[in-house]
């Protein structure tokens, strides 16, 4: 028999006190764990979005003159980048990406590879935006290079019909189709030309839903904007490419354009998310401290109820240190119990709260959270027990016996 075994027997026999004390810890730990699990799962969701939509650049002309355009959504008309500038921008981009990798310590053995692994060239998807009126509605016609657009906007999908194949064909956004009651096969007057609607895009929750798309060449011809483009969507084809570096270099070296990294936007959003989580965690930590005070009161009460027992242990030869150890073992065992219960409650809570806070969240409960819960519970219990243990160790034997 050892001191910790006596503590274990003490806890095992005094079940109700153990449950009260552990539950005080478990409630606070469960709140903290549920916040951590939900935040972690939410964070993964944010990074999934970044991985899905991120790692891309938007390059636009600096001076967008049109006041009525959908500038706020990244759509500007009336200002252009010459198509001839594309190779130069691509070169700046590639150079910046390689420099970015080198800055991160990667070895470029040969062009197009990083540390022996190949990285494909980026996809530059140019667009031309022109405003016109179709069926009495003001609308923007987007000229695109379809094969590149399908890479840059890989989430594009046709809900009805098919993508355009010929110069006199267009596809339209779902919202435009609904508002103008346009169907696949209808003819639309685009500029002075009649064009056939071959397909309707599936909703994208973006300005694309209220646009008409044709090929870049057709759009340039229709609106007499040969050799001009309104923006370029760049999709880096490697997941960790330093596109932020490329954006900085393009802005520095290519005059008249503004490159914006979507990754940076997503990262900024992620940072806001992290700060919000930290704020919530700080509130929950405050509740953990309050819980510690509750546990402290329970343990102090228990010590007053066990004065004779403490006096007896001292009379039998327990030193101050051994008594402190005895109470610390009790605290650890209560903390572990509280941590495990807190983990179970917190996991359950995160499955309830997570889906309310984040749409499509996948709650991921990993063993890491069990370890955190047990450590937190134990720490809280130890902190709450330090003073009571010291107090117990200093009780004079005769005083303990007088309390009978």
């Amino acid at each position, binding site marked *: *028999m050892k001191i910790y075994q*006596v503590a274990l027997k*003490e806890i095992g*026999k005094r079940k109700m006190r153990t449950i009260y004390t552990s539950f005080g810890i478990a409630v606070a730990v469960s709140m903290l764990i549920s916040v951590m699990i939900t935040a972690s799962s939410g964070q993964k969701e944010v990074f999934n979005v970044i991985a899905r939509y991120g790692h891309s650049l938007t390059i636009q002309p600096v001076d967008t003159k049109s006041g009525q355009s959908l500038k706020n959504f990244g759509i500007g008309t009336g200002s252009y980048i010459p198509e001839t500038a594309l190779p130069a921008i691509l070169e700046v981009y590639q150079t910046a990406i390689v420099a970015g990798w080198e800055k991160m310590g990667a070895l470029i053995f040969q062009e197009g590879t990083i540390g022996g692994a190949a990285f494909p060239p980026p996809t530059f998807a140019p667009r031309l935006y022109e405003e016109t009126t179709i069926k009495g509605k003001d609308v923007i016609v987007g000229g695109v290079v379809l094969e590149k657009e399908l890479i840059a906007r890989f989430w594009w999908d046709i809900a009805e019909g098919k993508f355009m194949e010929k110069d006199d064909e267009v596809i339209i956004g779902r919202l435009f189709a609904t508002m103008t009651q346009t169907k696949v096969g209808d003819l639309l007057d685009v500029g002075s030309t009649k064009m056939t609607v071959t397909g309707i895009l599936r909703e994208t929750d973006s300005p694309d839903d209220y646009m008409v798309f044709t090929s870049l060449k057709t759009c340039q011809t229709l609106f007499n904007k040969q050799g001009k483009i309104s923006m370029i969507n760049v999709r880096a084809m490697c997941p960790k490419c330093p596109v932020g570096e490329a954006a900085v270099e393009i802005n520095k070296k290519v005059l008249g354009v503004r490159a914006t990294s979507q990754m940076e936007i997503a990262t900024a959003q992620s940072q806001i998310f992290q700060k919000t989580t930290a704020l919530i965690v700080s509130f929950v930590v405050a509740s953990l401290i309050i819980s510690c005070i509750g546990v402290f009161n329970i343990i102090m009460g228990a010590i007053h109820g066990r004065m004779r027992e403490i006096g007896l242990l001292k009379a039998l*030869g327990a*030193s*101050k240190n051994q008594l402190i150890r005895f109470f610390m073992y009790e605290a650890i065992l209560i903390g572990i119990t509280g941590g495990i219960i807190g983990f179970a409650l917190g996991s359950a809570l995160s499955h309830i709260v997570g889906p309310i806070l984040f749409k499509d969240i996948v709650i991921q409960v990993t063993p890491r959270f069990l370890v955190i819960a047990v450590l937190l519970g134990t720490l809280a219990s130890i902190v709450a027990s330090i003073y009571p243990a010291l107090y117990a160790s200093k009780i004079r034997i005769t005083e303990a016996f007088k309390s009978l």
Partner: protein
Amino acid sequence: MIDIHDIWKIYDVGEEKIEALREISFKIERGSFISIVGHSGSGKTTLLSILGGLTKPTRGSVSIDGADIWSMNDKDLSSLRNQKIGFIFQFSSLIPTLCAVDNVALPVIYRSREHRHSWKAVYEYAEELLSTLGLKHKLKAFPSELSGGQQRRVAIARAFINKPAIIVADEPTGDLDSQSESDVMEFFSKINEQYQTTFLLVTHNLALARMTDKVHNMKDGMLLHSNNGGSP
């Protein structure tokens, strides 16, 4: 040998000072079997507490084998209580969450490793002590499952587990019937003879005191006189 020199114990009760013990001095040789008798409030239990290292005297010294126990630090004094002294308290003194045999073995956990026998040997001895005291069938019983007399016998067994040099007992047979009382006293005598263990008994029971070698009388915190056993 225990050397008690000019022991005083004064309690402050509000403005008043109560002298629980005054000028107590005597020596106890190793292997002595002595009792202390006196009325309630005469200071017997206080004296026993001071001798056992439980209560610090206001003045005076207690030396056990030449070492002044009240100038020891907490660790050494705890170690002394654990290894040299076995206590039998007046009140029920078992740990309610431990069974009888665990209660008996409890003091051993506070011994340093180098002074500790194997746990197997400790438990064998604990079972032997309990068997000697008629509790062989109650080894795994918890205190709540034992009668007052049985609890007292478990506490007696516990006092002997570390084979101490001194047994300090306050009304050791208080809860026992006459047969059990006689058995316990016989057990004490046997241990006293076998191991030269010193016994210090505090009791109201004059019949019990007569069974000891020497009887000290106390009144109002003072040691009045001593008699040889059988004539207190």
